[in-house]
């Protein structure tokens, strides 16, 4: 090993604390990069493979009841590769030991063959035996949630009739990666089931013998979906087509696609912040090192080493720190990625999800860290070049503070000398101080914004379940019923109040902008489920006109006063022209509201309801549930408390860990900056500190001179961090809000408090580490050295 390399390792060992802190910042940046891009690759590849292997349809075409020969008509539409017809319907499952019936979706499987499209992955048990109407295959996550075994019997109400089924297999399917009960947005394995049954059995149950009520279509490679959708709608129109839609509009795919998009955005935005901080730290640390070693540099040059050789020596130091951090980051990223894959696996039902990092992620992780580190290092190397041996070996002149002159007059009189020393150093190195302030502020802003957004979910819960929906139980019917059906519910045990509602599927259109959703009809003085305005006040449903959720109005680019086209997908499928009356605040979904009687009138169906919101006596719930199970028209019952609890649970599991990670991010960046700044200030000022001690300053007073500068940095960084976090939270909220859920941006003091505490703690720890060294300063030795 050359003597210079030996010097390199010994120098690194000497500054191991600082080098470690920088490597840690690099490591976190690389770890996030590796984890996120790895997760991105894993999710995308797993999803695509899963979709392909189990032949997920490109187009879903629900229809009321179409004869089987229509499938041949669909198959010849140009661009269509294959077609499958199936029967699907809602069911209520009666689970032993549980009063509330569970909503389920039943799907048919063709006899004697695999389905052409939308296959399923049988994880346990066996396939259905043709002709056995009592056999079912159950969604495995649901089975797991209720501890159901193969051979167990299930009791289900389908189309008003109670039937008993035997479980023969457990399966997952690509169309159920993400399962929520209809109308809900949070997955809850226990509260929604999928059953696969023989075609005959379902045809009998739903009275669709010789017909299908959902067509699945796959497209030829490169075929444009729009003309195919139009052709399908035209073909199915007379059979009650409910509007064909693409895979991208399918709930399960929507959720996972949003997740992947979010991950992609984050993976591009977050790691660069760490790299920037690392580059800044390397710059200030190596600058200080070069300054302290100027005599050695002069000497080495005097011996005959070239500028390049000497520069390379210092550049190697940058490289070692960057590469060490990057390697640490790669390992950390893999570990974190595996843990994250576990979380994803619990939310999205992949049959397998192997966390796999694209080797390119490693390459780019290491490459990016080396590049950013070099950027910091290069600036310093200019100084190494500039040093001539003669200059380098002369003792350096005292640092010149005369340029801080303008400050001097003002400082006089109201500041003591130590405070002046602190302030003059701040003003002499404004760039360094600014860099440190900015670095800490960005780190803090990043974590406080993320935390703020996460805490905002509480608002989502409060608004959704406290203000908008104040019912205890929501009941939905299989099909639109006369209003009497809703009022019959009032006679069930424990029911205090009933509020009927009518929801119809519709495509909302404003020029080129359209949205496939539904219109909810509310009663005139809605109390249990309402539309509210910005001030949380009730919006009176206008006699004519429609009220749109803000997210929906944004998608449709429409404002109050404009006219909206509503293509109803049910009944006589009228196309309505309605004026937008006002905008409602919602955070879950993108609903549109009309007055129920107006909606019914426009539909040409008088006095119809599709469900009802109930206020009930909680003591009588079990009896009520029993009674509901016996009511044939009821398709589903959901308790608001359960929806809220499911959402809360999801937030809590993710949030606890995220809160910690976010605080750690702020903490690590702060620690890296404060600790390094402190070490550097200490290196530059150790003689000053020793002099102060000799003059008779106490340890505390001497430490103030050094740590005061850092206190200023931290005190400046915290308000700036709050400002950055505040605006960043709007960006994040806007970036992550979709029509499925909107992220509210509310100033959350706790979020900023947590991040600020992490910053202060990290500063205190680094200050304490350096204070220990100040206390250990050998007064005599320090004063006799020439800097």
């Amino acid at each position, binding site marked *: 090993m050359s003597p210079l390399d030996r010097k390199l390792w010994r120098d690194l060992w000497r500054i191991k604390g600082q080098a470690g802190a920088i490597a840690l910042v690099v490591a976190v940046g690389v770890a996030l990069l590796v984890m996120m891009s790895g997760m991105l690759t894993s999710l995308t590849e797993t999803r695509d493979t899963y979709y392909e292997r189990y032949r997920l349809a490109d187009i879903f075409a629900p229809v009321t009841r179409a004869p089987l020969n229509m499938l041949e008509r669909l198959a010849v539409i140009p661009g269509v590769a294959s077609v499958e017809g199936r029967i699907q319907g809602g069911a209520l499952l009666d689970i032993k030991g549980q009063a509330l019936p569970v909503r389920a979706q039943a799907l048919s499987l063709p006899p004697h063959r695999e389905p052409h499209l939308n296959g399923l992955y049988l994880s346990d048990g066996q396939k259905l035996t043709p002709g056995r109407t009592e056999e079912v295959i159950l969604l495995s996550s649901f089975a797991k949630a209720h501890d159901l075994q193969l051979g167990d019997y299930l009791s289900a109400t389908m189309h008003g009739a109670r039937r008993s089924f035997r479980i023969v297999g457990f399966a997952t399917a690509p169309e159920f990666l993400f399962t929520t009960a209809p109308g809900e947005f949070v997955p809850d394995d226990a509260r929604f089931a999928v059953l696969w049954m023989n075609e005959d059995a379902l045809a009998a149950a739903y009275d669709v013998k010789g017909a299908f009520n959902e067509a699945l279509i796959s497209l030829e490679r490169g075929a444009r979906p729009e003309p195919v959708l139009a052709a399908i709608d035209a073909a199915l129109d007379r059979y009650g087509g409910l509007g064909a839609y693409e895979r991208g509009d399918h709930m399960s795919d929507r959720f996972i696609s949003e997740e992947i998009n979010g991950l992609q955005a984050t993976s591009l935005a977050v790691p660069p912040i760490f790299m920037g901080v690392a580059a800044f730290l390397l710059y200030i640390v190596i600058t200080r090192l070069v300054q302290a070693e100027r005599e050695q540099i002069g000497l080495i040059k005097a011996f005959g080493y070239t500028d390049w050789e000497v520069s390379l020596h210092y550049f190697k130091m940058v490289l070692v720190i960057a590469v060490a951090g990057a390697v640490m980051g790669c390992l950390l990223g893999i570990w974190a990625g595996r843990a994250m894959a576990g979380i994803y696996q619990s939310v999205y039902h992949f049959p397998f999800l192997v966390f796999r990092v694209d080797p390119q992620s490693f390459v780019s992780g290491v490459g990016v860290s080396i590049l950013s580190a070099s950027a910091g290092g290069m600036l310093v190397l200019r100084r190494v070049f500039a040093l001539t041996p003669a200059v380098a070996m002369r003792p350096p002149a005292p640092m010149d503070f005369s340029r801080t002159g303008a400050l*001097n007059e003002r400082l006089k009189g109201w500041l003591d000398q130590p405070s002046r020393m602190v302030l003059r150093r701040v003003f002499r190195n404004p760039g360094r101080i600014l860099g440190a302030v900015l670095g800490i502020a960005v780190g803090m802003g990043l974590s406080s914004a993320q935390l703020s957004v996460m805490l905002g979910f509480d608002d989502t819960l409060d608004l959704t379940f406290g203000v908008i929906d104040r019912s205890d139980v929501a009941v939905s019917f299989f099909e639109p019923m006369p209003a009497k059906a809703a009022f019959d519910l009032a006679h069930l045990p424990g029911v205090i109040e009933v509020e009927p509602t009518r929801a119809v599927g519709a495509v909302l259109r404003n020029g080129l902008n359209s949205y496939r959703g539904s219109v909810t009809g509310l009663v005139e003085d809605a109390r249990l489920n309402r539309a509210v305005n910005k001030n949380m006040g009730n919006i009176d449903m206008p006699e004519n006109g429609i009220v749109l959720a803000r997210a929906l109005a944004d998608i449709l680019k429409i404002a109050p006063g404009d006219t909206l086209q509503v293509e109803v997908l049910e009944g006589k499928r009228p196309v309505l022209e309605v004026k937008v009356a006002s905008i409602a605040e919602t955070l879950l979904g993108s609903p549109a509201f009309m007055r129920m009687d107006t909606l019914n009138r426009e539909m040409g169906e008088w006095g119809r309801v599709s469900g009802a919101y109930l206020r009930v006596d909680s003591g009588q719930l079990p009896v009520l549930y029993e009674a509901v199970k016996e009511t044939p028209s009821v398709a589903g019952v959901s308790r608001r408390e359960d929806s809220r609890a499911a959402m809360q649970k999801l937030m809590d599991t993710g949030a606890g860990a995220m809160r910690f990670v976010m605080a750690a991010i702020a903490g690590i960046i702060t620690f890296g900056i404060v600790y390094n700044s402190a070490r550097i200030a200490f290196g530059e000022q150790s003689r000053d500190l020793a002099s102060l001690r000799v*003059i*008779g*300053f106490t340890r505390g007073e001497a430490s103030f001179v050094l740590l005061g500068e850092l206190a200023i940095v931290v005190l400046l960084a915290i308000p700036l961090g709050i400002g950055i976090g505040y605006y960043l939270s709007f960006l994040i909220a806007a970036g992550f809000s979709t029509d499925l859920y909107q992220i509210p941006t509310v100033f959350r003091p706790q979020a900023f408090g947590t991040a600020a505490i992490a910053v202060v703690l990290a500063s205190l720890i680094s200050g304490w580490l350096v204070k220990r060294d100040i206390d250990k300063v050998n007064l005599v030795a320090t*004063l006799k050295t020439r800097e």
Partner: protein
Amino acid sequence: MNEDIPNTFVTKGLTKVYGEGPAAVHALRGVDLEIPRGEIVVLLGPSGSGKSTLLNIIGGLDRASDGVALFEDQDLTAMSDRALTRYRRDHVGFVFQFYNLMPSLTARENVELVTEIADDPMDVDEALRLVGLGERMDHFPAQMSGGEQQRVAIARAVAKNPTVLFCDEPTGALDSKTGRAVLHVLNDVNAKLGATVMIVTHAAATAAMAHRVIHFADGAIRRVETNETRLSPDEIAW
């Protein structure tokens, strides 16, 4: 020795050992010494003879391994860190070879650094005039010559009205002209303020201006001389 004048320092068996076992270095080997108040004392001796170590211990910068060092009847060797800080703050002025000024403070502010914490300081302007720097008090160290910086250091050391002024190679980094000017200042401080001045130096000629000269070798005092007639710094051969 003169029995009428009280002693500033008395040491008995003062010993300092660095390290342990076979690697131990005996910097002081049982030094007995009395320094009367108000004298200029020059400590002479080769490098490593122990003179700086003695200065550091009685200056409150370092601790003895054994023995006693009394400052006006207070035992420095028994003092806590806090008490030693107090002692330096109230009684001691230091001047070093490399000045050790705060680069971020002007000449005046460097002196104020001390007057702010001292019990009975002198006027800052007066301290700077004493060292002949009345004109340049608002300059930063970077704007001054070596001699000027050293004079600021002396002003800073004397501004607290110290009982004792320790100077470790005060002229070591200066040319003869500036060196002499610095010695003049030290002479004045002794004469006008009555402070005991202890100077550690390699330059044997400096001894001619002292009341008392202590010769060090191998961690012990070889001999002590008193000058009947003292020379002015101008007369010292450099």
